[in-house]
Structure formats: C-alpha cells, structure tokens
C-alpha cells in the first residue's frame, strides 16, 4: 500500500482559535482517515462548531495547521475549501430561503458544472444538456432523501426538520470527499432521526464519503460513528472508539454525567 493511501484525509494539527479574550480552541489535533465517520461531541460552547468552521475555512486559527490530503490548507477561504471537495451543513441551517428546494440543491452542483460562465449564458445547446444531467443527479438525491413532495416549496417555508434534510441534500449534491455535518439531527423526533441516520449511512456507503459530524444524541453517535472525539472548553479531552469514549471518566465528568439511582 502506498503512503498516500494510508495518509489520513484530514489532519488537524494543534489548532488554536481565540475571539478576543475567549479561547475557543486550544491546541486541538485530530486525524480523520479516508472513509471514516468521526463524531465530535461535547457540551455547548466546547468549540465543536468552531472546529468545523476552521476546517471549512470560515475561521482562521492563530496557531496550527489543517492538512487536507497531505497539503496545508489552513489559510484558504471557504469557497476555495469547497472546491477541494468539502461540503458542510450549518447548525442554524444556511439554506437560500427565497429559492425552492430544487434550486437549493442545484446550487450544490455548481462546482461540478463545467465550462465558462459566459459561454454558458450565450450558448443554449450544450448548456441545456449539462443542466439536464445535473438535474437528473439532483432528482436522484431528492428521491433518495424522500423529499419529492416539497421540491418546489421555497426553503424558508419548510419546518426545521425538513430544512435540515434539504441542507443534507445540498451537501450531498456536491459529491464531496469530506462531509461536515453540524448537528444534523437537531430538532427531530426518533423516527426522523432514524431516517437521517439511514440517509447518512447510505450516502456514506454509496459515495464512500468521509464524514465528520457534531451530534448531541449519544445513541446516534454510538450507532453510526467509527470514532469519537470529545471536546470541552476548547480542548480535546478524549478520542477513541464510541465505547471507549463513553466510559472515559473525563468525558463523563464534563458531558455525559452518571445515572442516579
């Protein structure tokens, strides 16, 4: 096996982020191997979303490096990170509220569309054909995520759970190498959570996408993740298999708590 194949897809090395006097992340390191599903857990304010923002280029750390596929990517802007094959969802749902669900998911395909913008505007034929191909792919995703009924609804009118699903669809539409999910199950009941787990696992199985997700529901974390990383007050306090982290005393102290008889 060559060194490249064994190299982790994402390497986070000693990342530190501060907002004024608030130390959001201190010296956080983790590796995500190709095809893995890693869950990031921790209490609110631990720095989980900040970590995702650093990986996707929205924040830049004052210390540390992010290596994507072996190359240093720390200082890239978000749209440059996206063009590397990273797609993400947001905690507060960043859909295009005025556009329909279909249009939202089509925007996820933007990076996959070939050709110059200007030619696309002028030439009807080849642009139409390309548009049809992308539309087919998006329709498959819509079928896969079972959101056919709301294809034409403006995204701003959907209930929160469905918005989260549409955001996942948009992220999947980009055929990402690395998928970052920020609390994808927030605001869902048990049935919806099961559905979302199924979608995430199926997407992972079909496309081989590497996934890093932030999640509060421990049963979900146990079910779908290969490895778990726990953060607290901006530091990594545990890392390992789900079972190992769940029984780690530091994690129990900071986050999970003990059942009282």
């Amino acid at each position: 096996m060559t060194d490249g194949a064994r190299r982790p897809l994402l390497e986070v090395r000693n990342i530190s982020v501060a907002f004024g006097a608030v130390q959001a992340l201190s010296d956080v390191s983790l590796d995500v191997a190709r095809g893995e599903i890693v869950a990031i857990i921790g209490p609110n304010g631990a720095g989980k979303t900040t970590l995702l923002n650093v990986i996707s280029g929205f924040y830049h750390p004052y210390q540390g490096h992010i290596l994507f596929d072996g190359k240093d990517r720390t200082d890239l802007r978000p749209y440059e990170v996206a063009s590397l094959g990273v797609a993400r969802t947001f905690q507060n749902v960043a859909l295009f509220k005025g556009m329909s669900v279909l249009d939202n998911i089509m925007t996820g395909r933007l990076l996959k569309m070939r050709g110059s913008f200007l030619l696309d505007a002028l030439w009807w034929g080849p642009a139409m054909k390309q548009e049809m191909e992308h539309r087919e792919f998006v329709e498959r995703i819509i079928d896969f995520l079972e959101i056919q009924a709301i294809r034409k609804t403006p995204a701003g009118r959907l209930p929160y759970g469905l918005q989260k699903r549409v955001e996942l669809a948009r992220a999947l539409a980009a055929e990402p190498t690395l998928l970052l999910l920020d609390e994808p199950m927030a605001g869902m009941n048990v049935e919806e959570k099961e559905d979302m787990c199924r979608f995430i696992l199926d997407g992972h199985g079909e496309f081989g996408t590497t996934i890093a997700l932030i999640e509060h529901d421990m049963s979900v974390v146990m079910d779908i993740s290969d490895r778990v990383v726990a953060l607290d007050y901006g530091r990594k306090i545990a890392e390992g298999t789900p079972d190992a982290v769940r029984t780690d005393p530091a994690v129990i102290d900071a986050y999970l708590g003990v059942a009282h008889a």
Partner: protein
Amino acid sequence: MSQLYAFTLGPFADMVSSPVFLVEVIVGGIAAGLMYSLVALGFVLIFKASGVFNFAQGVMVLFAALTLVGLIERGLPVVLALVLTMGVMVALAFAIERIMLRPLVNQEYIILFMATIGLNFFLEGFGEMVWGANVKKLDVGIPDTSFMVAGVQVNKLEMTAAVTAAVLVTVLAVFFQKTRIGRALRAVADDHEAALSIGIPLKTIWVVVWAVAGLVAIAAGIMWGAKSGVQFSLSLIALKALPVLILGGFTSVPGAIVGGLLIGVGEKVGEVYWGPLVGGAIENWFAYVLALSFLLFRPQGLFGEKIIERV
C-alpha cells in the same frame, strides 16, 4: 355636478373622441416608461444578485454618459468611445468590489446601502472633476424626429430606447432564471455565508454583477443623454426609477419593465387628459402616489419575492 362629470367621465369621452391621439399618448407613455425601466434594471440587477440597494445607480448612469460624451468630444470615433466607456465601467466595477464591497462582506445590508450613498457622492464629484459641469450634447446618430406608423406619430429616439430596454430585459430575465450563473447570483443575494460554503467565489460574482449594471447604465445614459442632454440632473432619474421598482418588485427583471410601462403610460395619460382639469403637473406626483398605494397594499410589488419568514 357638471364638475364631477368633467373630472370622471369627461377625460374618457375625450379619449374616445380622438383614438389616434390616445394611441400616440400611450405610445409616448410606453417609450418613457421603458426608459425608466432601463434605469430601474440596473438597480434590480445589483439588488437581485447581492442584496444591496445601489443608491449610486443614477449617478452611474450619469457617469457613463459623461465618459462617453467626454471621449467623443476629445475626438474619438463613436464606436471606439463606446468600447472605452464599457471598459471604464468594468474597471469601475472592479474598483467598487475591491474598495467598497470586499471589506463589508457579511455586514448588514443597511451598511452596504450607506456605502453606496458614499459612492454616489464620490462619483458625482469625480465626474464633475474629470469632465466638467457643463451640459453636453450627446449625439449617437439617432435623430430625435418622428415618423408615422399606421397613422400614429412615433418618436424615433424613444422607439430605439424602448426596443433596447425590451431586448435587455428579455436577455437578463432569461439569464437569471435559466442559467447556472443566474442561480449562483440569486444564491449570493440570499445568503452570503451559505453561498461561500458551496463554493461560489463572491468577489468574482460581485464584479460581474456590478459590471453588467454598469453596462446597463451606459445604455440608459445614452438614451437619456440623447433625449435631454448630459447634465447633472440626469442622476435624478434614479428618483423616478424608485416607483418603478416598488411597482415591479425589487428583485424582478420583468417587473422592471411592467412597472416602467405602468408608470410611463399612467403618467402621460394622466397628464394629458386630467392635467388641464387640475392645473397640470400630474406627471410630477403620479408615480409616487401609485408607489405609495402599492406599499400599502402589496409591498413586494407585482413580481417581487414575498418575504417569507417562519418564526
């Protein structure tokens, strides 16, 4: 009683009694309305694609006209001057993106709006400094004469402007709805952060949009400048474009045409038939009163996007 009749039914009787004249008035109104639409189009483009209301659009029209006339006066042939003016507007778009928009990414839209107010004053002063404050005559080779079409007198210049506006609007409407860059532009207007996260390069998009708005400003500047000379009050056309935007919807390209037509025709018809009854000057306030009533009953305009908020 007879006054009531004179006010409500009288004008309609007048219209019916000389239909040819009515058609002429309507045609004149259509042409004027389309010229308003040309200016409104620049607003819609920028608003639709970046969520910014460009207070400086009127001045951009003026600046484009000034540059074109200034270059022609310096002895350049018209076509070369036009190409150079296009280059200037594109360069202006680059400069605006670099100096004004880039530092304000993700700020509140009101802050961006204030920045465009500053841009307005800057361009006005800069234009005056470079090209002088005199009224200039703009001659693009289209005579301001009339010709007869099916017994109706039609102004050549106004017709050219009307056709230009119609063509521009059609092209731009199709562009926004059907092409992928149109979709990207709508996405940028909706949510900057989300657009960044799916790989849209904001800087490039903004330069493109402001450049296109600049080119539209050239078209508007040529038409208005040829009609009434290139002078600094040209920037006040932007004020007339506001009712057009309110009627048509701030984000709708076809709305800019429909709004312009409604206002143009309404103004002219109102002025000609009701003007004498109320002492004239209906043209001055008709557009604004119509816009006010729209704001009361249908604030998003005829074609604009309804504000959808799920609380």
